[in-house]
């Protein structure tokens, strides 16, 4: 059996989760703590990927990052190609999962008592330091929960990936695409084995994280 899809999926899901954390946590903090024009519009846009069917999302994303699309052309100008590469699979997984990080982290930040942050400020802490020493430690379980959801969603991403990364064996065929392909080819044995592996990964991961969540920040 070919284990490339498994390896690719783990990599894609890990890097997508890291990228969604890097971009999603600041956004969540912004939505939870700042009042600015367009905040409600931004909140709506954030959950859009959960509302739109993944294949439709993939269709539009491909129009943007394809070689005729605005982003695709800009990337091509600096010698990069994103569409139909593993990078596109990472992008697909990010788009599919970022709402989960943002909404959980935002909810977590909103429950942090603003007076505690204020107290830290009166003691001369910078905003950056307040975030790391007060806000995040108090909200970290929510951030962790969002991260776990995002990782699982990224590992299972199918529709967007199929469209923007293609389903190219040995290059962009992730675990969910490989399972689908085996079912299509009537190779149910292999499909079942791959599905079992996917379930196994998630069970082990969730078990590990539930132990980690008992730790303090």
């Amino acid at each position, binding site marked *: 059996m070919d284990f490339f899809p498994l390896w690719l999926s783990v990599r894609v899901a890990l890097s997508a989760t*890291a990228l969604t954390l*890097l971009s999603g946590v600041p956004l969540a903090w912004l939505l939870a703590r700042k009042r600015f024009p367009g905040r409600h519009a931004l909140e709506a846009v954030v959950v859009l990927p959960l509302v739109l069917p993944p294949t439709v999302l993939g269709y539009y994303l491909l129009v943007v990052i394809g070689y005729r699309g605005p982003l695709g052309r800009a990337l091509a100008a600096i010698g990069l190609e994103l569409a139909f590469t593993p990078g596109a699979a990472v992008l697909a997984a990010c788009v599919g999962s970022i709402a989960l990080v943002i909404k959980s982290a935002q909810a977590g930040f909103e429950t942090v008592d603003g007076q505690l942050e204020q107290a830290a400020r009166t003691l001369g802490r910078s905003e950056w330091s307040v975030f790391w020493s007060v806000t995040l430690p108090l909200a970290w379980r929510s951030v962790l929960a969002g991260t776990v959801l995002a990782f699982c969603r990224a590992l299972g991403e199918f529709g967007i990936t199929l469209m923007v990364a293609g389903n190219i064996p040995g290059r962009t065929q992730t675990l969910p695409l490989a399972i689908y392909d085996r*079912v299509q080819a*009537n190779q149910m044995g292999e499909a079942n084995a791959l599905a079992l592996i996917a379930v196994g990964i998630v069970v082990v991961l969730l078990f590990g994280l539930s132990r980690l969540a008992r730790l303090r920040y």
Partner: protein
Amino acid sequence: MRRRLVSIVLALASFAFGPASADADPPSLTVFAAADLAFAFNEIAPRFEKATGARVTLVFGSTGNFAHQIRQGGPADVFFAADQSFIDSLIAERVLLRETRTLYAQGRIVLATARPFGPRLTELRGLLDPRVRHVAIANPVHAPYGRAAEQALRNAGLWEALRPKLVFGENIRHTLQFVQAGAAEAGIVARSVASVGEVDWVPVDASMHAPLDQAAAVVRRSPRPELGLAFIQFVNGPEGRPIMKRFGFMLPGEF
């Protein structure tokens, strides 16, 4: 803690920009092919590899998706569509090479019955039987075999009566799975995918629907157009034809 956390996250994020994989060498020929070709092409491709020494990567899926992807620079060298209209519109958009356009087969549809259902249906009228609670066809809005199924049912005067029983598959393999799984007692699917253990089938007369002419062409952006054309000719040649025939395709020169 903070520094460790940030460095772990950054390290993981950088995965995205690392080298693609150990075998990142581009395969010599990437073929995007309609789902109905899966079984036949899995036999043809190894023979082509043996004959030419080239490596072939087969990607199966929906003709409509592939058309969109190739338009956006999808890495196909050759495109085998389930319906020639997709090939023609991509040629008009100068995405495919006109001079490579080849009619490679004509698809046939069959009436499929799930084995556990019992008696094999032998004519379309049999679908009216109340014991047949669901009839699977491919989505007639975009799937060529679905369109043919709708035409056949309309010509048989059964479309209106059967409408409440119809369930639509996304492509022809998906449609067959409804029958294979027994979720639909019967269905109309492509002859080329119908020979699986759980299903009995009888052909539907080709005069019942517009011909399912299937065409292929080489992609303009392909860096190896000769090899792509060679693959098309191989499918149409003395090695490919018997295999295509065995999977129930009508071949050029026969229709």
